[in-house]
């Protein structure tokens, strides 16, 4: 989530540290930061400049941290800065019944709470600069003061709001009637994104109860039938709570994920609806120029308080720390968790928006992250009572690896995805090779073909490959071992056929790779040249090899002695040179030129080129 530092400062009386300090605080105590972006004018003293942090809010904290208030609350606990202006501590009453507005929830399990405010006499206008700036810092487009105010509240508190144009709704006896119900069969809605959505009865809609038409997809998107326009004067603001699974399924089915739906699908506390509405009310008079005619709050089963207990002993047993009761108490105070403590047992009253805290371990995490995981020491595990058991399949695979590498085979890993097979993958993104392989030999044959052209470069006489891997065949998954060479057809058999007859007591002591660093290879083709010469007597082949390398230069990437024989006093030496560039495809002509130079130099040294 994008979080504006300037926005965060509004929650505190104390000055807030720099964005980098905030990023570090969050990184080591709450969430990863994907980046910090400077927005607005960078001129000194210009309050339009801002830092926007991209905070990776984890899925367990979507309940409370997809908002500036949530992040401010975290920073308050981490940095020990009092949260001076908390919208969740506001408690202006929301109990004025709106005389001209009723709300009906058809299924309270899908919409546990619905607060509607009826606001008259608003003047729809462009938003003031501060509001535009706040939203634009987050990459949001400013629309008008009404829509922007609802969006501001969502990014501020985490509670999505929606505003309907009351003038477009029908009335019964002078009363507006909002119904939250399942969509009707074949019901359609032209949403505010100007797309028409085909709905069905698994989806929840907000409807104008009098006209019985959908005006919004619950928790996801508003509809054009009640959209705000420049002509709007009376509005109904919704601050509601919707079932997370229902919103998630509907958003998935409609392929319509919005800032609202991504919050509702995390599961929000219905208490948030009231905080969101109160926050909205602060804007009615001065920003919207309207007047609140009343509220309706339908909340049949108010959220119950959760209490979770954890002992200092348990915290230390899990974290491996030696924290004191006072240190634990300090954490809970910084997080504003109300608690009772008795003999080291903390009985915590979980804040209503913290739906993630349900078991003692959740509180252990709160303590661990707020004190900081750098307080966790590194300790070795105690010895196990017995030696680890040998895994027969791994033993066998390792044994086969040893046998085959000794015979000159190299190990490849090829994809388990194939063009054909018994098991098909349902949803492959690239839809190529949509099956799970039923053999290793197809992959081995492909690998062989691919490697043959590089034989000289590899300095090999023959390509020999093996693979040990899973295949899906005959209705089951099994591990197969396969080989292929240029001379022998690819073949494979179940790895288990190579298992030792008796359970081995321990693994074989096999060598590890001795490579230190991997060297990138050139993607360009290479050119091979052979040169054979009669060497003057007493010549060491390795000296000749070094001499040729020096004469051939850097483009000669590999050189090997591939033949050597004696005739009388004379020795014939034959070398194979491989030329390749990292930057381009070499031409025959330039390689020929290098070879001529090599020949000439050898002749000069008394060699007779054959």
């Amino acid at each position: 989530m994008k979080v504006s530092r300037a926005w965060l400062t509004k929650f505190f009386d104390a000055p807030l540290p720099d964005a980098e300090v905030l990023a570090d605080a969050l990184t080591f105590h709450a969430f990863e930061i994907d980046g910090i972006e400077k927005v607005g004018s960078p001129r000194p003293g210009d309050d339009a400049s801002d830092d926007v942090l991209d905070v990776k809010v984890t899925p367990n904290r979507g309940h409370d941290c997809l908002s500036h208030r949530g992040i401010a609350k975290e920073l308050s606990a981490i940095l020990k800065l009092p949260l001076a202006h908390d919208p969740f501590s506001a408690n202006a009453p929301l109990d004025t019944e709106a005389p001209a507005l009723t709300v009906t929830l058809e299924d309270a399990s899908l919409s546990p709470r619905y607060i509607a405010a009826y606001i008259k006499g608003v003047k729809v206008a462009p938003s003031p600069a501060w509001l535009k700036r706040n939203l634009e810092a987050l990459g949001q487009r400013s629309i008008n003061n009404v829509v922007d105010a609802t969006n501001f509240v969502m990014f501020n508190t985490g509670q999505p709001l929606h505003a309907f144009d009351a003038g477009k709704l029908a009335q019964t006896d002078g009363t507006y009637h909002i119904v939250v119900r399942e969509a009707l069969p074949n019901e359609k809605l032209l949403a505010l994104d100007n797309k028409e959505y085909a709905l069905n009865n698994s989806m929840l809609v907000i409807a104008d109860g009098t006209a019985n038409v959908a005006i919004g997809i619950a928790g996801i998107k508003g509809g054009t039938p009640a959209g705000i326009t420049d002509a709007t004067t009376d509005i109904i603001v919704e601050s509601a709570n919707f079932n997370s699974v229902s919103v998630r399924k509907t958003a998935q089915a409609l392929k319509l994920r919005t800032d609202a739906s991504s919050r509702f699908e995390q599961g929000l506390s219905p208490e948030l609806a009231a905080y969101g509405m109160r926050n909205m009310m602060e804007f009615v008079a001065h920003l919207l120029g309207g007047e609140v005619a009343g509220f309706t709050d339908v909340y049949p089963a108010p959220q119950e308080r959760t209490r979770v207990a954890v002992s200092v002993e348990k915290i230390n047993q899990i974290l491996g720390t030696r924290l004191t009761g006072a240190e634990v108490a300090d954490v809970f105070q910084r997080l504003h968790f109300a608690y009772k403590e008795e003999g080291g047992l903390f009985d915590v009253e979980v804040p209503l928006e913290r739906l993630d805290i349900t078991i003692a371990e959740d509180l252990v995490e709160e303590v661990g992250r707020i004190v900081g995981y750098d307080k966790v020491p590194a300790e070795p595990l105690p010895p196990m009572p017995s030696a680890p058991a040998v895994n027969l399949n791994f033993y066998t695979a390792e044994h086969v690896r040893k046998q085959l590498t000794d015979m000159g085979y190299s190990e490849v890993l090829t994809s388990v995805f194939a063009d054909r097979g018994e098991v098909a993958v349902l949803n492959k993104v690239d839809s190529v090779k949509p099956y799970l392989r039923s053999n290793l030999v197809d992959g081995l044959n492909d690998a062989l073909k691919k490697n043959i052209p590089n034989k000289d470069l590899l300095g090999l006489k023959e390509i020999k490959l093996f693979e040990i891997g899973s295949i899906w065949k005959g209705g089951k998954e099994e591990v197969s071992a396969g080989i292929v060479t240029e001379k022998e057809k690819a073949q494979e058999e179940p790895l288990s056929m190579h298992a030792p007859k008796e359970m081995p007591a321990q693994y074989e002591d096999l060598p590890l790779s001795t490579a230190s660093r991997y060297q990138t290879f050139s993607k360009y083709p290479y050119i091979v040249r052979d040169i054979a010469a009669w060497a003057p007597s007493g010549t060491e082949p390795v000296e000749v090899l070094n001499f040729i390398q020096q004469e051939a230069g850097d483009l000669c990437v590999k050189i090997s002695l591939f033949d050597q024989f004696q005739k009388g006093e004379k020795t014939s030496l034959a070398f194979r040179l491989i030329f390749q560039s990292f930057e381009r495809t070499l031409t025959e002509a330039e390689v020929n030129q290098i070879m001529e130079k090599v020949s000439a130099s050898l002749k000069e040294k008394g060699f007779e080129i054959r």
Partner: protein
Amino acid sequence: MADAPQGHIHPISSLIREANRIFAKMGFTFAEGPLLETEWYNFDALNVPKDHPARDMQDTFFIKDAPGQVLRTHTSPVQVRYMEEQMKKGVMPPYRIIVPGRAFRNEATDMTHEAEFFQIEGLAVGPDVTLAHLKGTLEQFFKELFKGAVEVRFRPSFFPFVEPGVEVDMRLTGADAPEKLRGKWIEVMGAGMVHPNVLKSAGVDPSKYRGFAFGMGLDRLAMLRWGIDDIRLMHSADLRFINQF
């Protein structure tokens, strides 16, 4: 030619061989499980409920005409499979396993992402396992693997199957560490204390036992270890790559 040149094992195989050796000294047994998994072991048993946003963290390959079957998105299902098997045999904790193996994510591939990759899972369960033991175990592993001084640090994170959950960074500090890596914090894995629901799924009493678990990308580890620049080389079957190891 009388003697064929020695063949090469894949760098991932070498890494698994080495990891197994290091962890065996700390009491960990090599364990394994199927690649084609049930949703139960891959998700539900690991405290990832249906219709929960946490399932979105992992793009999953599903199987045609086989509802409830997935290509495992991590090696973690083996945690539950192993514990369950031990409990059935009447073998009570302590348990310590490592699970090196393939896992799958349905996503576009590039130089650092592959749809098929290798992971190594670690699990230690006992009456008194702590997060401090996790730090100690990982420090020891990296120290032996990178043959030099290593620091490990934790940052808060979230994985449904652990609580608390942490992201693990490591830093090579030894003078002989590769220059590109020396002194730099590198994110290497997700880990944490096994969630009580996971122990319950496997039939282990969470009031008596606790554990830590970690899951690290072996491809990434190989890339760090040997300075490999493209993850796609792992499945390239290209001997210009493999024969360097």
